[in-house]
């Protein structure tokens, strides 16, 4: 008798906690979805706005659905309206960015791999200090180097050119790429390298035969990190280039700020999406590697 009473009250208790649990569960999802909508909101607004006509924009609200798939503002953002002066559009600047990103990512990644390799597998006295020396470059506010950099690019005759931006991004990428490769290679057993050395393998042979074949993940992380940083850069782009040599972020900003006639928000939004799409695609396809880079090197502002 007493036993059954006990168990029924226990059951009641369990029932109650089940209800509170269910309530908590709903609350949890509610909050998570609430934040998800906060994060998705600007992207949604950008996409629907880019598909509206200006008339629809004036009449509807931010959230209202476009009447149809109106791609005209995309065409204008990408290729302009076809009249000469003052017609700015993104296509040439998109290619500027590509021409800047590809060599800068390649060179900085290659140099980082080499330094990371030396710092972990060919250690020398004081190598820790050399690493620290390079690492500090991750943290400096670039304002502290803008003035001399502008003068240097002028002296070298490559200011306001894609080549100048390649140099800048390569140099200031080295601290990050070194950090990535150094932290990756340090977990590779040094015994492998020692054995190869005894067998008579040289510096480069060891790198290409032993280290490089196992480097795929860290190369992906580094390339994605560098690509995102350089593609999204605005400070260097806007300081060291203008007019025709500008990368896409600078062109986007100029387009949005240009106060000629009526503001065309649909074209602005289409332009913003075009400037953001390459990094967004990389993020969606390789999010895992993107996050890995972010958590190990995200000190760059």
């Amino acid at each position, binding site marked *: 008798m007493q036993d059954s009473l006990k168990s029924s009250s226990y059951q009641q208790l369990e029932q109650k906690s089940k209800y509170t649990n269910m309530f908590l569960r709903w609350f949890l999802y509610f909050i998570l979805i609430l934040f998800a909508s906060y994060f998705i909101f*600007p992207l949604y607004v950008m996409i629907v706005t880019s598909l509206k006509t200006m008339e629809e924009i004036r009449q509807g609200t931010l959230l209202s659905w476009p009447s149809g798939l109106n791609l005209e503002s995309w065409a204008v953002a990408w290729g302009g309206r076809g009249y000469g002066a003052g017609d700015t559009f993104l296509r040439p600047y998109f290619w500027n960015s590509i021409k800047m990103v590809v060599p800068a990512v390649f060179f900085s990644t290659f140099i980082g791999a080499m330094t990371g390799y030396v710092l972990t597998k060919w250690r020398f006295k004081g190598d820790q200090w050399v690493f620290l020396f390079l690492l500090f470059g991750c943290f400096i*506010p670039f304002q*502290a180097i803008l003035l001399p950099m502008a003068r240097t690019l002028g002296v070298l005759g490559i200011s306001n050119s894609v080549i100048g931006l390649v140099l800048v991004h390569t140099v200031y990428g080295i601290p990050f790429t070194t950090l990535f490769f150094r932290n990756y290679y340090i977990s590779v057993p040094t015994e492998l390298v020692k054995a190869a050395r005894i067998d008579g393998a040289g510096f480069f042979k060891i790198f290409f035969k032993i280290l490089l074949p196992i480097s795929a993940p860290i190369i992906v992380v580094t390339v994605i990190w560098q690509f995102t940083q350089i593609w999204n850069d605005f400070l260097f782009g806007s300081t060291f280039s203008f007019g025709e040599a500008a990368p896409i972020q600078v062109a986007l900003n100029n387009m949005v700020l240009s106060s000629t006639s009526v503001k065309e928000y649909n074209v602005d939004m289409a332009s913003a999406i075009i400037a953001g799409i390459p990094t967004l695609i990389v993020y969606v396809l390789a999010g895992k590697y993107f996050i890995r880079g972010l958590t190990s090197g995200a000190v760059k502002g």
Partner: protein
Amino acid sequence: MFKWLEKNLPKIVMAPAVGLIGWFVYGFVLWTLYISFTNSKILPKYELWGFGQYEKLWASRKWLIAVDNLLIFTALFLIFCVVIGIILAIFLDQKIRAEGLLRTIYLYPMALSFIVTGTAWKWILNPTLGIQKMFRDWGFENFTFDWLVDREMAIYTIVIAGVWQSAGFVMALFLAGLRSVEDEIVKAAKIDGASLFTVYWKILLPMMRPVFFTSFVILVHISIKSYDLIVALTQGGPGISTTMPALYMTQTAFHKSQVGLSAASAMMMFMAVAAVIIPYLYSELRRENAR
């Protein structure tokens, strides 16, 4: 000769990187430091002038506004990013359905440039056609949200956009931290009768001290350097009400041609960053050596 080359090959391979960083980072910072002690206007002059530029800087109303804004922005940016980041990380840690999708949504702003997101926020926050109009069309006719064009409030629009961009990143850091804790610890606490709330508040969050530290350093670093977002969202306006140090520096250098003064402001930023970063690097290095 060949022997020597072979022996020193690793150092020769290192040399370009060390040389480039030595020149373009350390050399350039020293050059900026030197120029900040001269009376340079459009072109750099090399005779020393003492602390004049620093006195001018701290007497400038615009710089004081910039520093003020930086403090407001940093404080709010830190608090909101960390609170939102922790809430999202803990909630996502509860064996949630569609966790991958939610995580992707929370973090995608980090993949976009501040110019892109600034453009979007500028459009959303503009009073004539943005959120304000949306609410008015919905029937809230007195609804007002015009922070973007309000001198007093414009700085908070930068906080809104900045938090939106970076909160997901703090979430990722904390989620990684929480996942690295051994399950046994949580299980043991639950057997002892601790509620889920107690487990997090008393056990897990205190274990996240290094993650707090890392987030703090990274967020402060982002906020000191914030430049793109302000350019895209307000250009420092209305008036000069949302100027921040990074914007002050470039404007003084490239629009006002006050090279010496802008070098002084750059050095102030450099010192602020160093004050946060050097202790961080020191502790990281010690942790690594202890391993």
